[in-house]
């Protein structure tokens, strides 16, 4: 047993020394250096190291403005998908407890939520994932460096420690997967000093209290959703529309449900300034763009969810001539994730026009690694990507929105089947299901190929995943109606949908 450990016991090789000596001989230290240890970067580096190449991954978290920082794994693991879904679950359980009484559970007195307990449990799980990733990199023989990476030229990556110590790595190929960070508004006084972002909310040790969420993206709505669900006074301040880019009818159902659920909405309002009062509370002044009037209110926390931006400046890409999109700052990439500089690649959130999703980053990263190793020529297919918004009433979708389908084929070129349904679980619980809805957007005539599927309801993510397979296989409306439903589920309503929007008939599903 001692032998197992003997080999790794005295590992203390000075990486720097090896790097410099190799550079002198003209050879590369690594076949691949990945800058960014998030969903994409980790998947790419682990896949690349499998075939034998020497791979290194650099991961570094620049603390948020409020000082929050986290471990290996990127946004998804630390300040995105994972903590979000866990807190969403905490909120759903609160609703379930309320429903439980109707189902016979004897619950004496009101049930309260303790932020600290939830936060610690969520943060502990995230830490276990940080560790898990570290172990995986070790197992797959990927060199992990906790350094802030920047590019010196197309074959050289510079890594900096927090103290400013430099390490130079010579790489045959370089992959950039550094993702993005939340944006702060630039023209609102007090925004940076007094506000937080999604980088901070999941790591708060104390409850955020009465919160103003500025923005109407899925980040804003998901955060506002779980904050409301755990019992906090929450307001969403939206400048214009909610869930830009998503089907707007579905977006409306999501926000209608949230309003009924208890989230306050300040539509068409824009914050002007944030001041800290002597009590420690934050006073927000905003303008209602409909009336032009100014309003004030106090909150414990202001959460900015006004967009995300890539950290391309710090990477030194402009010096190398890597083409960036002027508006977004993201890297312009080809279908094979290549950039304007040969042997520099980029993918994940940092790629212009790419979905900001973990599964697409992981898959794209793996395929890129295989192509770089010469094992495959398969490109990432970014079409037919399903996704779900984990608001209190979840919304899952795959394919085109109704408005996008209309734009492409015209209103007469599409047929939309839809239905309002009531999940069985809502009946005994006496819950309102007015926003539980689904629609299938199809080509009109011919095979009636399905162009888009949309579903709001409990477990929308689980429901949509299965239908995404059918979508990927080119399912048509007749395939869908030939599929037998599983009873009693909410998902089966998708297989039974038969009322078209065009018919104007009542789309409410009745009985069994």
């Amino acid at each position: 047993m001692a032998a197992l450990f003997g080999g790794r016991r005295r590992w203390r090789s000075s990486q720097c020394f090896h790097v410099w000596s190799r550079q002198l001989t003209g050879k590369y230290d690594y076949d691949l250096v990945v800058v960014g240890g998030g969903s994409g970067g980790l998947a790419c580096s682990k896949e690349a190291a499998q075939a034998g190449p020497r791979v290194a991954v650099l991961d570094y978290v620049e603390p948020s403005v409020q000082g929050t920082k986290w471990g290996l794994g990127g946004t998804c693991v630390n300040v995105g998908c994972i903590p979000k879904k866990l807190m969403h679950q905490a909120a759903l359980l609160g609703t379930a407890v309320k429903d439980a009484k109707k189902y016979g559970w004897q619950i004496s007195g009101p049930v309260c939520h303790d932020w600290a307990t939830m936060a610690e449990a969520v943060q502990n799980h995230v830490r276990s994932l940080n560790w898990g990733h570290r172990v995986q990199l070790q197992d797959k023989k990927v060199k992990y460096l906790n350094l802030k990476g920047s590019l010196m030229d197309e074959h050289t990556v510079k890594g900096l420690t927090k103290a400013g110590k430099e390490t130079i790595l010579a790489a045959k190929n370089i992959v950039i997967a550094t993702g993005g960070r939340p944006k702060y508004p630039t023209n609102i006084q007090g925004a940076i000093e007094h506000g937080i972002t999604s980088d901070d909310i999941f790591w708060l040790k104390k409850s955020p209290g009465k919160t103003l969420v500025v923005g109407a993206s899925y980040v804003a709505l998901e955060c506002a959703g779980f904050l409301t669900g755990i019992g906090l006074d929450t307001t969403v301040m939206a400048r214009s529309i909610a869930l830009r880019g998503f089907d707007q009818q579905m977006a409306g159902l999501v926000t209608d449900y949230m309003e009924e659920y208890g989230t306050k909405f300040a539509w068409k309002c824009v914050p002007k300034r944030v001041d800290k009062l002597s009590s420690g509370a934050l006073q927000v002044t905003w303008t209602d763009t409909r009336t032009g009037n100014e309003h004030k209110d106090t909150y414990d926390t202001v959460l900015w969810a006004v967009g995300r931006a890539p950290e391309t400046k710090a990477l030194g890409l402009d010096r190398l001539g890597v083409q960036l999109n002027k508006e977004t700052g993201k890297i312009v990439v080809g279908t094979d994730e290549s950039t304007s500089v040969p042997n520099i690649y980029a993918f994940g959130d940092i790629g212009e026009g790419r979905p900001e999703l973990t599964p697409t980053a992981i898959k794209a990263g793996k395929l890129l690694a295989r192509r770089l190793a010469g094992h495959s020529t398969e490109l990432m297919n970014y079409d037919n990507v399903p996704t779900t918004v984990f608001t209190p009433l979840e919304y899952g979708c795959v394919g085109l929105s109704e408005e996008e389908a209309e734009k492409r084929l015209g209103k007469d070129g599409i047929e939309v089947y839809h239905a309002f349904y009531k999940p069985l679980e809502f009946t005994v619980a006496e819950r309102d299901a007015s926003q539980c809805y689904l629609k299938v957007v199809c080509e009109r005539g011919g095979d009636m190929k399905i162009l888009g599927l949309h579903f709001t309801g409990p477990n929308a993510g689980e429901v949509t995943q299965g239908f995404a397979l059918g979508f990927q296989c080119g399912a048509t409306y007749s395939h869908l109606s030939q599929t037998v439903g599983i009873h009693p589920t909410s998902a089966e309503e998708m297989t039974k949908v038969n009322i078209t929007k065009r018919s104007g008939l009542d789309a409410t599903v009745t009985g069994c």
Partner: protein
Amino acid sequence: MAQRLLVRRIWTVSVKDIRRFPAPAAATAASSCFSTSLQPAATRVSFLAPSRALPRSLPHASRREVSFNVQDHEDFTERVINSELPVLIDFHAQWCGPCKILGPRLEKAVAKQKGRVAMAKVDIDDHTDLAIEYGVSAVPTVIAMRGGDVVDHFVGIKDDDELDSFVSKIIGQ
């Protein structure tokens, strides 16, 4: 690497020569090492009789350091690798439920040995590199070291009897 091992062993041997009265709690720093060397002969006798309890004349400081939290790599080298005593290294994490069960059991098993074995606690989130260096993947992982060499290890929870027997084996009873 072999060279490094050799160097360390030589160093350890010469340190052993210097320390005539080895500290019962291996994790003591240099200062307490000197204070122990001024102990009367009674100390040495009781140390050589493993089944006896420690004499009351021992300084309180050394008894406290039978179980300690590793502070950094240097601390680990000083108090674990260069320890006179066999050391159990408890790799744990705050997010690990089983670690919270094993921890107190280990302390109990170590305390039973009355200073014949020390316990070093390593939080793998604070000392990730060290944990990776020792090949830790799941927690809790307990590694037993004697004279700078890994002599045994286990992963997961063990009950009190299993721990007693594990610890006894390390001490060499």
